[in-house]
């Protein structure tokens, strides 16, 4: 099988032991064992850098780590000529950041030229960190903010704000000084393809590799990096919430995102929601391809099998106790809107006194929302007092709270198996992981119409508007009362999940994309010893092939009419 060298570009998370564990990256690397991977990772804080790496399979040849949180140790002071070059390129970049009010953005080319100019300088003379911390950078920023055509907000920038912007740019441009762009060694030059695991800083080395070596760039965005920046850079984030600083910093990230979307060969958003952002920032539709995140289905299949064995098929209509149970799984946070579900359940109980609700906590709530959990428990106790079958039995509340990991609910699959209908009542969601898990378990679902829910569920479950307990209750009642439909929907949901959200499909999609991108890019000059796919035009394998044109020797196949 042909082997490609993939440069995996990551920021935080994979492959560090500390940080959100993005299992999909690990599955990707393990699933495409016939390719070779070089991981280029940015550590976002000290703890992460010192945490070590997750165990990696042998196809990962090397892991190069660069810190974003501190200056690179090798930074040196620029000489006179280098300072002049720096001033020129940084002025371009600063001009592009300061320019332009809302609306159509002029100056994207200025941004690109400044960015790549700085990158070339950094490639030859080391990262621009020291120059960005010096007075010269502040002076250039000041001039850019005072220039005609500058954004009105930044015109009155004060010195402190300019310093803050320079400090942020110092950090944001650290990927330039990593030394990954030299020929040979720990370099992106050897990669046939760069795969950025997220947008933003992680994609920056990919952009530069594309610039320097013509390496095709693939950007996967499961969460929109720019959106995350906006959410985190809100009031109080910089300089006590200085609008000027946030404007300039947001301009940098916005333009970097736009540049990424414009330059990447292919962007693979994880859902239509991420896709909208890419489109909004100027990505071309034909360079966007949604690749749904994959999840490990094996954990959930047992629950489904159990459900298939135990559940009534509907003819008899005798619903077991389990089948009158609703399951809600997630973290008890306001975004989950458990209160709405409790109110809905009150209505359900009025109609169906046998109904039960299992609230399975998949993790502790964020410290800021700890009170919400108590509130929910208190509300449940208020709405649903303990009930007993007769005068001699011990009563229990129809709403039971459990944490995943307890003996009764060892894992999430068990949580979903505990009930007949899975409910997702959240008011905010990106990609609804819990919903996909329920689908894998073959559960009929009722979910609120938020985020990517509609896209995920397709027609295999009920969708109600968010913040509408009565609609939620009605939908749940409809499913509780109709076992046949429940089974039908559950089976359909499971089939859909297996088709769209399995890990194999995800890995397979990326494998195909790798080959496709490699086939479109000209083969690199330095041919490795291994046979390289698409290194020779197909005609080379024919006996009576026409002599290739001189300028096409060694070049990849030219696909006329292909949508480049």
């Amino acid at each position, binding site marked *: 099988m042909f082997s490609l060298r993939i440069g995996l570009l990551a920021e935080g*998370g994979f492959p560090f032991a500390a*940080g*959100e564990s993005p299992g*999909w990256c690990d599955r990707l690397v393990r699933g495409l064992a016939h390719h070779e991977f070089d991981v280029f990772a940015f550590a*976002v804080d000290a703890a992460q850098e010192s945490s070590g790496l997750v165990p990696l399979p042998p196809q990962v040849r090397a892991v190069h780590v660069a810190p974003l*949180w501190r200056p690179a140790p090798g930074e040196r002071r620029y000489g006179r000529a280098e300072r002049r070059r720096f001033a020129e390129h940084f002025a371009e970049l600063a001009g592009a950041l300061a320019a332009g009010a*809302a609306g159509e953005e002029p100056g994207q080319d200025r941004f690109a030229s400044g960015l790549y100019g700085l990158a070339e300088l950094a490639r030859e003379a080391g990262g621009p960190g020291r120059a960005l911390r010096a*007075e010269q*950078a502040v002076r250039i920023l000041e001039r850019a903010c*005072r220039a005609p055509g500058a954004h009105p*907000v930044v015109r*009155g920038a*004060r*010195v*402190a704000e300019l*310093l803050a912007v*320079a*400090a*942020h740019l110092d*950090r944001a441009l650290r990927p330039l000084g990593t030394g990954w762009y030299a020929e040979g060694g720990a370099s992106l030059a050897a990669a046939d393809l760069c795969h950025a695991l*997220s947008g933003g800083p992680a994609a920056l080395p990919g952009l530069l590799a594309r610039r320097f070596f013509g390496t095709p760039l693939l950007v996967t965005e*499961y*969460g929109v990096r720019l*959106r*995350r920046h*906006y*959410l985190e*850079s*809100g009031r109080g*984030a*910089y*300089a*006590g919430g200085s*609008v*000027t600083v946030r*404007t300039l910093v947001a*301009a940098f990230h916005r333009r970097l995102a736009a540049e990424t979307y414009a330059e990447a060969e292919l962007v693979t958003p994880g859902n239509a929601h991420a896709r*909208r952002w890419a489109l*909004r920032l100027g990505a071309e539709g034909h360079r966007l391809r949604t690749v749904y*995140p994959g*999840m490990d289905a094996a954990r959930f299949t047992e629950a489904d099998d159990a459900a298939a064995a135990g559940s009534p098929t509907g003819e008899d209509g005798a619903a077991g106790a389990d089948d009158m149970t609703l399951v809600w799984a997630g973290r008890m946070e306001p975004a989950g809107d458990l209160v709405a579900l409790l109110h809905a359940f009150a209505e359900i109980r009025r*109609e169906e006194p046998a109904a039960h609700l299992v609230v399975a906590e998949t993790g502790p709530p964020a410290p800021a929302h700890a009170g919400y959990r108590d509130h929910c428990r208190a509300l449940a106790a208020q709405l649903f007092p303990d009930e007993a079958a007769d005068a001699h039995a011990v009563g229990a509340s129809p709403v039971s709270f459990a944490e995943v990991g307890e003996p009764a609910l060892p894992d999430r699959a068990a949580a979903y198996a505990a009930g007949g209908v899975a409910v997702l009542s959240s008011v*905010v*969601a990106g*990609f609804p*992981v819990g919903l996909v898990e329920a689908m894998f378990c073959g559960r009929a679902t009722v979910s609120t*119409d*938020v985020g990517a829910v*509609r896209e995920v569920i397709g*027609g295999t479950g*009920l969708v109600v*508007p*968010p913040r509408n307990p009565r*609609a939620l209750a*009605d*939908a749940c009642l*409809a499913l509780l009362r109709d076992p046949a439909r429940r089974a*039908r*929907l559950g089976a359909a949901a499971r089939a*859909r999940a297996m088709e769209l959200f399995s890990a194999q499909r995800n890995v397979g999609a990326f494998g195909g994309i790798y080959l496709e991108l490699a086939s479109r890019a000209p083969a690199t000059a330095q041919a490795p010893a291994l046979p390289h796919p698409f290194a020779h035009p197909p005609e080379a394998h024919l006996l009576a092939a026409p002599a290739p044109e001189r300028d096409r020797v060694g070049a990849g196949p030219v696909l006329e009419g292909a949508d480049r």
Partner: protein
Amino acid sequence: MTDGPRATSDPRTRLPGGETGEPPRPTPAEDLAEALEEAFGPPAAAPSAAAPSDRGADADAARPASPAAPGKAGDRPPDGRAAPAPPEGREQAADTLAPPAAAGATAAAGGPAARPSAGAAATGHMPPPAADSAPAAPAAPTPASAGPHPQAGPGAVPSDPAGLLPTTSARAPARGRAGGGRRGPADPVRGLMYRHRDLCRDAVDPLEIAAGLEAHGVTDRTAVRYRHRDVFSLAEEMYVRTRRPAAAPPAPAGPEPRTRLALLAHLLPLGGGLLVLAAAGLDGRPQAALTAAGVGWAVVALVLGSQRGPLRVGAGLPAGAGLAVGWLLAYAVYGDWFLGELLGGATGVTRAPAVPYATAAALAGLTAAVLPAAAVARWFAARARGSLRDSRDLAEFRARVRPLLAAAVAAVLAVLVALQLVAAVAGPLFGRAVHEPAASASTYAAACALGALLFLARLLAVHGFPRAAAYGVAAACAAQVTALLLVLAARVPGLAALGRPVELLVAGPAGFRMATVPAAACGAAALALLAYAGRALTRASAHRKEHNEMTAPPLATPSSDDGGAR
């Protein structure tokens, strides 16, 4: 499902994208109505709410067309744009015509946005409307509820309008208002802007508002209610319509935490100085030992004090800088005696070193100056940071900081001079007559110069110029060493001329003033550092702090919104 009010609300369960409540078959009439509407779009001038278009019949969504609403003209049905007033009249008309029907119909609005995906659903089919129209019938028994409305085109199909379309929760308040005869707000975006007023005010561009709205659960479907194609265009309108205050200067940062420990640490060197002073009353070996102990104490205390507080230096201080400072201190203690021996004694240094009272007192004054110097450094840093906030450009900042720097140096000099004066005056109180006033004066001057040099060097190092600071201190050391070597070399026959400059320097009208050598060396170095500081410390970048409140926040780990990335 039997009571009337419940019945009218039931359509909400039949939702876009999913299977529906009960599975009765859609009647041909309803299919026809749906097909008609899909073919011709929402009825343009539907005066009856029975033919609901999400936006046209949306009474609460009708508002005057805002001038700042990019990208939404196309989204709006003609009637909504042309005449903001009609919806209310329409609603009233519906009310008077058939109140129950109007209620039901308004409740049924809001479907079109959701419909395409309903069609795309794999197994889902359009909600069969008859499901709840049957229970609805008792609640709305008038023929008008199901009968044809003369004004409505597609709505004229004899069917239950309430069951025609699925609805969203937003219609619930609309229904309530229709029933109560109240009007909705004319401008729904205004309400949204009010709800998210902090977000709108602080946003730096429309995308930030879009991100914030999405984080609050606003989706493209919701945006349709505000007559926008998507959240982005809604956010653009909100961004443009928000009135923002002029950018305020950054909030002043709180003062550096002042720890009692740092205060103590800066007082500690005085103990060493007092030890040396006490030693001056002794003779011979005890004096040497006590003096060494005092100097050692002072050095340790200085090192401790510079670990925190306003004199803390980050990385970058050359290793030799500490040695140079040590040499300067040692010279301050024994340098004068050593130079005197070199100049006077022909046979080399043999006598036990002695520290006269003046030297000890000068040293004690110097150690006492550490605390005021730290306070001045702190004041200078704080004021300079304040100027950073207030200055509108770099030139202004320079103009503000230059007098600050001059004041700081002057203050430290004044403190030094005052302390040395105190030391000189206190001499007789200890019963120690000052034998040579001129020599003592030069000693006090040398102490002042040394103090100024050390202060300037530390100030430069604290603000990011450790190399320059080290050079300044090293230059003073070099000058002192050179003076000693010159005197030594002058003993070589024929090279006596080498010693002349030093001899001239120390020769006074009333005897030798050995301390002029360190005074000259340290003074010259201090002046050079002052000149350098005048340029370097008036730069804005000198007052950038590595980890202050101005730097970027740490990048958070991917949020749970990254959904699949786990």
